[in-house]
């Protein structure tokens, strides 16, 4: 152990660098600062259709992340999707009549839940339920509805039938 000083300094630097790298990955690369989970309260919401929503998807209010989707289950009594949301304990003033909607971030992005505050004076707490929900928009249904409404309008405008034909291949 003749270069023991150099060795010790080198090892010290190495370990410090490694820990710094881990720290950077945790703080700068990942979303540690945004939400760490576990210290929030849980509320449930029922949706007719959740589309492509996944666990750990963000829950936002006014575009700000306030929590995440904890679990997704299917309720075979009501034939609805039962989604449990984990809301960060910092936000305690979410009205009970808030609306939960499933939106898509961007054209190809993942789906998330947006909460829109209601007017109620009572706030959500552990175990609460969001009654007002809006399902995810499913592309096929949208196209189907569009075609349906166009067909219902009848052949009064030539552009309409043209639009219907154009939309058909998109299916």
């Amino acid at each position: 152990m003749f270069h023991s000083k150099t060795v010790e300094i080198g090892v010290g630097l190495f370990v410090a660098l490694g820990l710094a790298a881990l720290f950077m990955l945790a703080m700068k690369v990942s979303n540690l600062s945004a939400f760490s989970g576990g210290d929030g309260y849980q509320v449930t919401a029922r949706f007719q259709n959740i589309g492509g929503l996944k666990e750990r998807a963000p829950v936002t209010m006014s575009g700000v992340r306030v929590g995440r989707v904890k679990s997704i289950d299917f309720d075979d009594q009501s034939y609805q999707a039962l989604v449990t949301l984990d809301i960060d304990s910092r936000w305690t003033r979410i009205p009970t009549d808030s609306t939960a909607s499933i939106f898509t971030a961007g054209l190809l992005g993942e789906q998330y839940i947006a909460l829109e505050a209601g007017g109620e004076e009572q706030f959500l707490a552990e175990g609460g339920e969001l009654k007002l929900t809006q399902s995810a928009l499913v592309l096929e249904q949208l196209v189907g509805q569009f075609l349906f409404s166009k067909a219902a309008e009848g052949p009064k405008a030539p552009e309409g039938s043209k639009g219907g034909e154009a939309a058909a291949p998109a299916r």
Partner: protein
Amino acid sequence: MIEVLRRLGRTGLQFFERLGRGHLFLGYVLLGVPEVLSRFRLLVAQVWSVGVLSLVIVLVSGVFVGMVLGLQGYNTLVDFNAEESLGVVVALSLVRELGPVVAALLFAGRAGSALTAEIGLMKATEQLAGMEMMAVDPLRRVVAPRFLAGLLSMPLLAAIFSAVGVLGGWFVGVGLLGVDDGAFWSQMQAKVDLHDDILNGVIKSVVFGIVVTWIAVFEGYDAVPTSEGVGRATTRTVVHSSLAVLGLDFVLTALMFNDI
């Protein structure tokens, strides 16, 4: 026909013998680990030769891998007008896969082969037998510190690899190709999850560290004590540990990221 069966049987037996010996060996080494913790200097010296000396190759490779990811990711994403997601692509590929895997492969080539050669040569030059005759257990004195050092160094190396890789990707994406700096980081932070991605990456690198170091020290300790034997053992270390890393990576990925 009988001869073929006999040979097959012998090969099979040898395989199981080695497998068993390898696991018993691991057990003995693990028994020696607590003692190493009380002799910190031994560990420091080994972290130096296993970890610090692998640092340069890991740093350089990490930067280049990150830069390549930045370039390739940009070319693909720009077609979808989604080049802001470059940070996500770079960070996720590095943290989940390339960081642990490539760092482990480099580690096997740099530190694993050196460990095997060193221990094999110590065996060939009777240094291990000499220690035993001085009533010093070479498993505790020689192998255990190296094992522990490898196990500790590998996650650090993988983290460093990922971190400099992200910086390399950032340099190419933001610095050269003009991706928006804020979007690069914020998208990354929004999509990379501490538990799912980073922690699982660290777990991977710990597993790879254990496996690569285990293979390396075992091959060295089990080497035929001649120069040819040590050479073969060194080759085996690199081949076996690379295969083990890639195979285990699949298993771990399937276990970790397949639950949604």
